[in-house]
């Protein structure tokens, strides 16, 4: 009798356990990867359709529409789960025509080809990029930027470390 009850609950137990173990690993695994300066994240690129880019970034995401901008629509995608800072690991913005124009990276797990990521020190950033980046000091952040109108990367530095990275186009 006891054995039959045990067998009856065995399959649901295994399934629930697998789900509990897999969901966080999938959600965190989806937002690791490479930042390509001025282009995008992993294989997601600026200018592509958001339905193409969203699966390329990976992980679960939430989509919201903002119509308050001059009667135009802006789509906002938030990837992963909210971090302790209150931010999402990756945000993506697209116009009403669904063409992506901005990626915002708040997670340390996304790294550029030379190892720069959120949390890297200002001195390491300047030594790695040298004369390729320019500096602009603002009232709160210091902006180190590179690239052109069609693909620009901004490293926003606060208190000597990179606070977030933005890849955008005009």
């Amino acid at each position, binding site marked *: 009798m006891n054995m039959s009850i045990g067998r009856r609950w065995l399959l649901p137990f295994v399934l629930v356990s697998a789900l509990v173990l897999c969901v966080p690993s999938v959600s965190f695994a989806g937002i690791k990867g490479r930042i390509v300066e001025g282009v995008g994240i992993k294989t997601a690129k600026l200018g592509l359709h958001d339905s193409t880019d969203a699966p390329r970034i990976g992980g679960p995401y939430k989509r919201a529409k*903002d119509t*308050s*901008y*001059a*009667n*135009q629509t*802006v789509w906002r995608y938030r990837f992963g789960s909210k971090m302790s*800072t*209150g*931010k999402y690991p990756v945000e993506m*913005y697209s*116009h009403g025509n669904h063409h992506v*124009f*901005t990626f915002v990276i708040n997670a340390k797990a996304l790294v550029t080809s030379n190892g720069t990521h959120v949390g890297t020190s200002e001195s390491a950033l300047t030594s790695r990029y040298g004369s390729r980046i320019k500096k602009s000091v*603002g*009232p*709160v*952040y210091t*902006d180190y930027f590179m690239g052109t109108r069609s693909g*620009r990367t*901004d490293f*926003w530095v606060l208190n000597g470390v990179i*606070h*977030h990275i*933005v890849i*955008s*186009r*005009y």
Partner: protein
Amino acid sequence: MSARLRSRQPLVALALAFAFACAIATLVAIPVTASALDLAPVPTILKPKPSALVTSTVKMTGRVGPLVTDLRVTGGTLTTFTILPADSEGATFTAEVSVRYGRTTIGLEAWDGSSWSEAATRTVWDLGTIPRDKRLVLVDKSDYMLYIVRFHSVIAAYPIAIGMRGTPTPTGTRYLARPSTSPNAVWGPFRMRLYKKVWVRVSYIVRVGGRNVRRWHRVLRKVATSYYIHGTNDPDSIGTPASHGCIRMWNKNLRVFKGLTYRYQLTIIRA
């Protein structure tokens, strides 16, 4: 009698200790006061007025002590200076100091032949060329700042967030509405809509030859735009291009800003 004296011994000891401490403090303080007196008198700056708007060069005037022969500045570059002949109370000086864009605090020190004085400071703002209106709000997208200008002085300056590169904040002349309750926590406690003036065709009816005739003319009207100055639920975004075209401020600054502005105040947004 001797018993009463013995009972007062602690009080006497305390009084003696206090007197001793005062004597020591006086001895220590005398050299400090003397060295302070050795310094040249601090210059008095008469112009420009505090928080004045300037354009790359500041013309300063003021008074210095009668023995002063030289001036030096910190925070800017002293290009020229003149000290007029001194009378018994001091001399008048004029100086030209070049400053950089934004906020500059100029420190002015005087040399009387033996020592430099302490610095007299004056904060000025170089915001480029702006209209000579008495009161306006100036939004400078290049340095993520909003300035409230009144009678050619900057009375407040706040960091802001502007539109992202795909959804930029439009530039030009706008007019600021009074605050309306924010329908969403995203916009902070309230938001203030920006209006712009546009020419609008309006019709009117006139009676001509017994018939009603519709005629048109153009009037300049303030028309609401979809852009606001509002607060935020994301304080980290201030100082970056983060919005969809609106101007964000920290909520605490927005509450003060509301009290410093009035209905349809001229607002200039520039790149």
